[in-house]
Every structure is written in structure tokens, then in C-alpha cells.
């Protein structure tokens, strides 16, 4: 049993079920990110943990106590909202201590807690201002201060960075991560930004259509996505998906496809599973990330199974740190992440190196990954 237990929780509005049997155990000190496109049910799930939405069936428990029907203020949680939700008529200091005041904490203790949090977040000089006089980043800090001051069991973040500009978002992301490392608090964090999910979390739940598609560490999610949705949703640029035919080749298995010129290309698997062998002769989907598909000089030296192939370049996109090179494999466009100063031009036939260690395969019918 975890610190925060979500067992078989569903949510329905009338006859419409929007969240289907969610099962997640969060350990103490974990940073769980719920990520998915809008309408996937991630905010609904967060609101159910907070007690702002009722749980239709199933149970949500914090520290072993069922929270169904318990008022939000009695769950010992704190929430940071997307709009920050700072009370406009109160000063920053009053905003931070409002929750303590409502819980009947005496004034001297409130002042002490306020001072501590203000110091931690470096907002001491803002305490007497009204929220309207603050910048976006400052409001964000105050909103976090209001959550921190309560010393809750679980922190809930509802897309807290999406109202900030790009640069500030990256800065605040780092700060949230630092804060989590310093305080070791349990956090459930909702976002639609897959980069935020990967950078912040200790575990990620990828959600779509009211289902948890995959629950795992960022590395598991990124390297071995459970299905095509997770594969394409996580990672930017997204994973290349090429239709290939599984063929037997010298005792092993290989994926057969063709390059931009229509020449057949064989991509041998180093250690194919028994499951994959059963697909021999069938067409499946081969997935590989742009960074596993590069120029031969930039390929991972520790990789055991690099396959080199020639193909025509369609487009190049220099991105400063890397150059993305687009080619065509098996009739679909594939993105290769090459070194920044690689010399290729559209129309050239150039040599690519594909790290087959990192490749994953999916059944195109069920869309699930073949182990």
C-alpha cells in the first residue's frame, strides 16, 4: 500500500464515464506527473484527489485513510492552480496565511510559518503587496508559498507553469524540482507538456481518453512506450514509426523496409523475443527516436547493434545544437538527429546509422508494443 492510493477510481457525469478504473499507488516523496492531451481526464483525477470532484466508484486513500466524501480542507492537501488563484483582495502575506487562519492556527505560529516560507521562496519583500501588483513568476511563487505553508501530506499542481512565458517556465520548472529535492514532499502534478513530465517526475502516468495508457518512470515511458499513443505523445520531435515486414535472416530476425529510392533495406534485430518471432512474415510498426537515428560518426559508441543505411535527404532543419535531417523509410518521413555541423543538403544521398538497440516494435492492429 502506498502513501496515496488510487484504487479503481472512476468518474461519471450521468451515464458518461470520463475516467475508467484508474489504479495508481504513489509512494511517499514521489513526484507523479499526470500527462496527456486536453480532455484526457488528468485534471478530473487531480480534482478527485483534492476532493473538488466526487469519486463515482472506487477509492482514493491518503496515508491509508479513505478520502471519499472527505472535505478538501480535511484531506491535508494543498493545491497550486493554473491561474494561481490568489485572493485579489488580500496581501501576499494574508494569502499565504489564510489557510492557517481557517484551520485555527494562532497568529504567532502563522507569522513564523509565513516568514519561513517567504524565506524559502525568496518572496520576503513582496509580503505586503497585493497579487495584482506582482509579475507572473512572482504570483507563481506566492501560490507555491500558500501550498507549502500548510505542510500538507500531498501537493497537487494543476498545470502551474502554463501561464508563464517560455523562459520563465524553464526556470520555474527547475525551481520546483529543486524544491522537491530539498523538501522530499509527495507531489501529484498535472501537465500537458511532455517535457515537463519527463524532467520533473519520478514517475509518469500517461493518460488518454480517460484511461491510464502507461504508468512508469520517465525512462520506461520514453524508451519502452506501452503503445503507439505513448510513443507519439512523449518525446519531441516524436518517435519515427515505420511499417516493416518481419523476415528471417541468417537464423535471426530482421525488419525489411525500403529507403527513399525504393531499395530494400534490412534492419536486423540483435535479440528478438519469442513473441516477435511469431510475427515473422507479418507487417508491424517499427519505432525509433530521432536520436537513435543519426549520422554514422555521431552514433552511440556503446550501442551493440548499429545498422547503417543510405537514403535521400528530403529536408534539413538546423536547430543549433543538432541538425534534424528528414528522409523517407518505408514510405513514411523519418526524422534523424545528426550532429550540428554535419554537411548534408536536401537531395543528397547520405549515410544514416540506426541504433537498433533502442528500436521498439508495435502491433499495428492492437497498437500495443511487442515485448
Amino acid at each position, binding site marked *: 500500500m502506498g502513501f496515496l492510493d488510487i484504487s479503481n477510481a472512476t468518474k461519471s457525469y450521468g451515464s458518461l464515464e470520463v475516467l475508467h478504473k484508474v489504479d495508481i499507488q504513489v509512494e511517499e516523496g514521489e513526484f507523479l506527473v499526470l500527462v496527456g492531451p486536453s480532455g484526457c481526464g488528468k485534471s478530473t483525477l487531480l480534482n478527485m484527489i483534492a476532493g473538488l470532484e466526487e469519486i463515482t466508484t472506487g477509492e482514493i486513500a491518503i496515508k491509508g485513510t479513505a478520502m471519499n466524501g472527505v*472535505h478538501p*480542507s480535511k484531506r491535508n492537501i*494543498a493545491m497550486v*492552480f*493554473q*491561474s494561481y*488563484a490568489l*485572493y485579489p483582495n488580500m496581501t501576499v502575506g494574508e494569502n499565504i496565511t489564510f489557510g492557517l487562519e481557517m484551520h485555527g492556527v494562532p497568529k504567532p505560529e502563522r507569522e513564523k510559518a509565513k516568514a519561513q516560507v517567504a524565506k524559502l521562496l525568496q518572496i520576503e519583500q513582496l509580503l505586503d503587496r497585493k497579487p495584482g501588483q506582482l509579475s507572473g513568476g512572482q504570483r507563481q511563487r506566492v501560490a507555491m508559498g500558500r501550498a507549502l505553508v500548510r505542510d500538507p501530506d500531498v501537493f497537487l499542481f494543476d498545470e502551474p507553469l502554463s501561464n508563464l512565458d517560455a523562459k520563465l517556465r524553464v526556470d520555474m520548472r527547475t525551481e520546483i524540482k529543486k524544491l522537491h529535492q530539498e523538501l522530499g514532499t509527495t507531489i501529484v502534478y498535472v501537465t500537458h507538456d511532455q517535457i515537463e513530465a519527463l524532467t520533473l517526475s519520478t514517475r509518469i502516468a500517461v493518460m488518454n481518453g480517460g484511461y491510464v495508457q502507461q504508468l512508469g518512470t520517465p525512462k520506461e515511458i520514453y524508451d519502452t512506450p506501452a503503445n503507439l499513443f505513448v510513443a507519439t505523445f512523449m518525446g519531441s520531435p516524436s518517435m519515427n514509426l515505420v511499417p516493416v515486414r518481419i523476415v528471417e535472416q541468417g537464423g535471426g530476425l530482421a525488419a525489411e523496409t525500403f529507403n527513399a529510392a525504393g531499395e530494400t533495406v534490412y534492419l536486423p534485430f540483435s535479440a528478438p523475443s519469442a513473441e516477435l518471432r511469431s510475427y515473422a512474415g507479418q507487417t508491424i510498426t517499427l519505432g525509433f527516436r530521432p536520436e537513435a537515428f543519426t549520422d554514422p560518426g555521431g552514433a552511440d559508441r556503446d550501442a551493440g547493434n548499429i545498422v547503417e543505411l543510405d537514403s535521400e535527404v528530403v529536408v534539413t532543419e538546423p536547430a543549433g545544437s543538432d541538425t534534424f535531417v528528414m528522409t523517407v523509410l518505408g514510405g513514411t518521413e523519418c526524422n534523424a538527429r545528426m550532429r550540428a555541423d554535419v554537411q548534408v543538403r536536401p537531395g543528397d544521398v547520405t549515410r544514416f546509422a540506426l541504433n537498433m538497440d533502442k528500436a521498439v516494435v508495435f502491433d499495428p492492429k492492437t497498437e500495443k508494443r511487442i515485448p
Partner: protein
Amino acid sequence: MSVASSDTAVRTGRITRTFLYLVLLLFALFYLLPFGVMLVNSVKPLEEITGGNMLALPQTLTLQPWFEAWATAQIGVEPTGLHPYFWNSIKMVVPAVAISTILGALNGYVLTKWRFKYDTLIFGFMLFACFIPFQIVLIPMARMLGLSGLAGSTAGLVLVHVIFGLGFTTLYFKNYYQVFPTELIRAAQIDGAGFFRIFQRILLPSSGPIIVVSVIWQFTNIWNDFLFGASFADLDSQPMTVALNNLVQSSTGVKQYNVHFAGAILAALPTLIVYIVAGRYFVRGLMAGSVKG
């Protein structure tokens, strides 16, 4: 000139502009004229009015008509002047405005932030209060007041005005709170504030403009009401408007026009003052509710 016209949408030439101001001035005069006539005649001795021109400025200035209207004029059968009725009106208007505004705010809060099944239907019914002709309810209302023992009392009048004001105040506050961020309410819930605490600590402090709108609207309507005052009040609870009517109607012998004018101004003064003091918030508050994000 260029500075003045730079922030107007349409550029106008000097001649058009002069013409515009002339027309506006004319309209302003036209609207002010009745009040001017009242004011001028309320400080004249009666002979100057009966003997000549109503529009002429007073030759002898006197405040006697004002004193008479306030303290000694014949209202119905009693020579009390208007002042007891002025206080009747105050005793009726202040609680009626306060109660209907507070209840309207609570209604708006519930209808936007604590929604329940059929809440729009209930709101629809409340809006009837805004549009129903008052004459229709006179007799049922009289019966209800009789049954509840409030007939002929100030409390009864307060009740009637609260009921009819509630539709408008609810409408105002509902529109205003509609755009109030719901996340704030949720944050306060998590912080541990209850229904009334959220209302009092979060919502009300942000409701200044719409409270002003509600107060002005209610004050003006209730103070100026004649029908309910005439129908449901006793002698000792009659409001100012009814007393003014009695003053004008009951004069025996010579009609004391100067006293009537002074009385009419006295009756209109409170609404005028409220509008002058709080009027600039009125438009602002109306706008705040109507502009949606």
C-alpha cells in the same frame, strides 16, 4: 483641440463641433429646466407666483416655503409638514436596500458557484420579479401582508420591496460573479473556508462596483415608489412620496405652490444625492458585469 480630438473615434471640424456643443447645451437646458423652475419658485413668496411669471427669478428671496414644507404644512389632516414621512421613508428604504442587496449577493453566489439541479429554472422564476406588473400582485400581496400581520407597517413595506428588488439584485450579482474565477473558490475550500466564510472574505471584498449598482438601483426605486406606499402603508408608516401627494392634494383654500415645489425637491433630494455620490461607480459596475472574458 488636437489633443482633445485625438482620443475620439471620429474627427470633427470646428463648425461641426460648435454645432454639436450647441445642441448638447440645448438638451442640457431642456432637461434642467423643470428642476430650475421648481428651485426658483420654491424660494419665492406665493404672491410672486400667483401674480405673474413662473419663470421669473424671485424678487424677494425666502426660505419660508422650505420650512413650511418640512415642518408645518398640512398633510392630509395633520399640520406636521413632510418630516415624519421623510423618516418613514428612511426607515423603509435603508433596511429594504440592505436586505435585498445582501440576499441578491448570496443568490448570485449560490447560482454561480454552488450550482445545483434546476438552478437556471429557479433563476428564471426570480427574474419574474423584474418584469411582472406591480398592479397584478396588489391584492394577493395585501392578503399576504394581512395574514402575516404586517399590513400597514414599515416592516411590511420593507418585505414587499425586498421581494420585488430581489430579482434585480440577483441578476446583477449573478452576472458579476459569473466571471469571478471559480479557482479562487476552490482554493478557499482547500484552505478550509466554508460557505459563508468564502462569501464574506473572498467574494464580498471584490464586489464593490456591483454593490454600488445594486444600492443605487434599489434606493432610487424604493424611495420613488408610490404604488406600494399608497396601497400598503398606514398613516404612521406612509413614505415621502405618498405624503407629497397628500400635501399637494389636501391644501384647503389657496394652493401654496411654493411650498409644493419645496416639498417636491425635498422628496427628490435623497436619490439625487445618492446618484451624485456614487453615480460614477454605477456605469463602471454595470460594465463589469456585462463584459465577459
